[in-house]
């Protein structure tokens, strides 16, 4: 029974973290048809800038409460700056190229971002645990959990809701759905597709950075976290169906619970279980749960 509760709470926690980290990836793919490996780089930038800023701030001895402002600000700064540079500086010139080629381009950008991170913050680890324990812990049937974990779950829900409402209830969101449906016709209708791409990419990058920033207090931020998250995010969005935000949420829950279950039941299978779930899903639905099969007209 206790294990079941632990799996449920941890599963939700993992799911929230995975959703935040991968929703930007699926958004960018949905709109721009770019499978953005550099997403891992944005995640790392967010995590580093958040951990670094929290470290600087707490060194002054001020109240930890304000770090909850620092986290989103760090994510915003990291995401907007790096997202704009990457989109305006490189991707802009490659729109319309083959999807596989774009994977290679973003892989190259990922490699560059890895070293940018190292050049700015060095190769040592950053630990910024203060926000994670600020609200203390609460007991769930006798198992203590940090309140921060539930905060991340709340943030994930809010981000999901905002994206859903933003896409379906606002004018800009509806225009974006039109762009997703048919890029060429939207252009012909006078929609500024390029600007939508820029905005989408920056939002996607910022979401990636937010995923990193919000996780930073719970982990030790060190080189390699970007490479790690990109694989997990791939699994999440492939399970759900690439380009679908609802799919990312479902994928995150499936992967999150699979991971929590193996952590509690059979720890060595932790990474293994995620891909096993993914393989099982794809064996039944080859392009993910929420994907529509496309047929070519001849």
């Amino acid at each position, binding site marked *: 029974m206790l294990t079941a509760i632990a799996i449920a709470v941890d599963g939700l926690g993992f799911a929230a973290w995975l959703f935040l980290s991968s929703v930007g990836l699926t958004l960018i793919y949905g709109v721009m048809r770019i499978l953005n490996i550099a997403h891992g780089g944005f995640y790392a930038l967010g995590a580093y800038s958040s951990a670094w800023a929290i470290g600087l701030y707490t060194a002054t001895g001020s109240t930890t409460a304000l770090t909850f402002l620092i986290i989103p600000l760090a994510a915003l700064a990291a995401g907007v700056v790096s997202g704009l540079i990457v989109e305006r500086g490189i991707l802009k010139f490659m729109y319309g190229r083959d999807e596989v080629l774009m994977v290679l381009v973003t892989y190259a950008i990922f490699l560059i971002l890895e070293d940018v991170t190292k050049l700015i913050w060095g190769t040592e680890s950053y630990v910024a645990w203060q926000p994670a324990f600020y609200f203390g812990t609460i007991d769930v049937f006798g198992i203590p959990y940090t309140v921060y974990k539930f905060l991340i779950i709340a943030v994930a829900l809010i981000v999901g809701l905002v994206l859903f409402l933003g896409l379906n209830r606002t004018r800009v969101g509806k225009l974006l759905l039109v762009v997703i449906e048919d890029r060429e016709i939207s252009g012909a209708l006078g929609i500024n597709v390029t600007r939508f791409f820029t905005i989408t990419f920056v939002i996607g990058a910022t979401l990636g950075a937010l995923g990193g920033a919000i996780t930073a207090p719970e982990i030790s931020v060190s080189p390699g976290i970007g490479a790690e998250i990109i*694989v997990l995010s791939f699994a999440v969005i492939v399970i759900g169906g690439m380009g679908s935000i609802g799919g990312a949420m479902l994928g995150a829950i499936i992967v999150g619970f699979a991971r929590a279950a193996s952590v509690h039941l059979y*720890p060595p299978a932790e990474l293994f279980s995620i891909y096993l779930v993914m393989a099982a899903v794809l064996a039944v639905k080859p392009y993910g749960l929420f994907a529509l099969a496309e047929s070519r007209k001849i």
Partner: protein
Amino acid sequence: MTKSLDRTELGLIIALPILICIAFVLPKWIVNYVQVSMGTGLVALGVMIQMRAGLVSFGQGLYFCVGGYAAGMMAKFLGVSDLFVLLAIGILAAFVLSTILGFLLRRYREIFYAMLSLAVSMILFGLLSSTEELGSTDGFNLPTATYLGWAPEGETARLTLYTITCIVVIGCAIALNRFLKGPIGYINEAIRENELRVEYLGTSAHKAVHITYILAAVVSAIGGVLWALALGHVDPEMTNWTTSGQFVFVSILSGIGNIAAPLLGTFILEIVRVYAVEFSPNTWQMILGTVMLLIIIFLPKGLWSLLTRKKKTKQEKLAASAPAAGE
């Protein structure tokens, strides 16, 4: 068409004695790099033959690792150190695994192929990283290879392994060159261009992709065995996606035009890495990334295309002067 085929094979055959001879002439450290890069070069070849079909494998490290670990486990648990047995076991393991996984992967194309190949390689990564019997993330060591009962030591052992590596790698390269010029190789190019037409011409694209996938796996496993024996060590990093990414990098860098290009590309990369890491350890990946972007933008067919470009322009001129009809 048929002439250039002979030239590549001839070049490889001529290169073989030269390669073996340099072991006696050049300093030991360069020879070591040649040997190591021949192992990883075979994996790059595996990536390259799939690229001919338009498929980018971001998980070729899987079979590199399968080869290395299969050989390593054979040595560790059964005490076998015979190179030929280890090679055979590496090939067998890769063949069986790729035959099974091929049924899943052959259904996918483009980015899905890239992602799924990455995912399956990370399954092994996860598995090996948490298996303590196999040294978890540290991996384990391999013994010095023996050859049908002969157990050389020291300098002799080094030169023997090197010579055999050269022969095996050149042999694989020639075999793959023939494969690319053979029916399946041709069909692969057609699949890259237009899979629908391939099916309408009356052959199974899935089958061709499956065969290519198995062949790429086997070659990568051979590379893994040779690499592991050269270094005397294996670890899960072999199947991490960042390792696979480097094989993709080499294929992009050298292009898919010629079978020798990835081998050469791997060696150059290995040498450049030594200096780059020495000179400025935190900018190596940045250099890789930048070079990759420049190649994609300015030399989409890879560095090798610089060598063949002259011939091409002549052909294009001829083509342009041909009369255009239907106008």
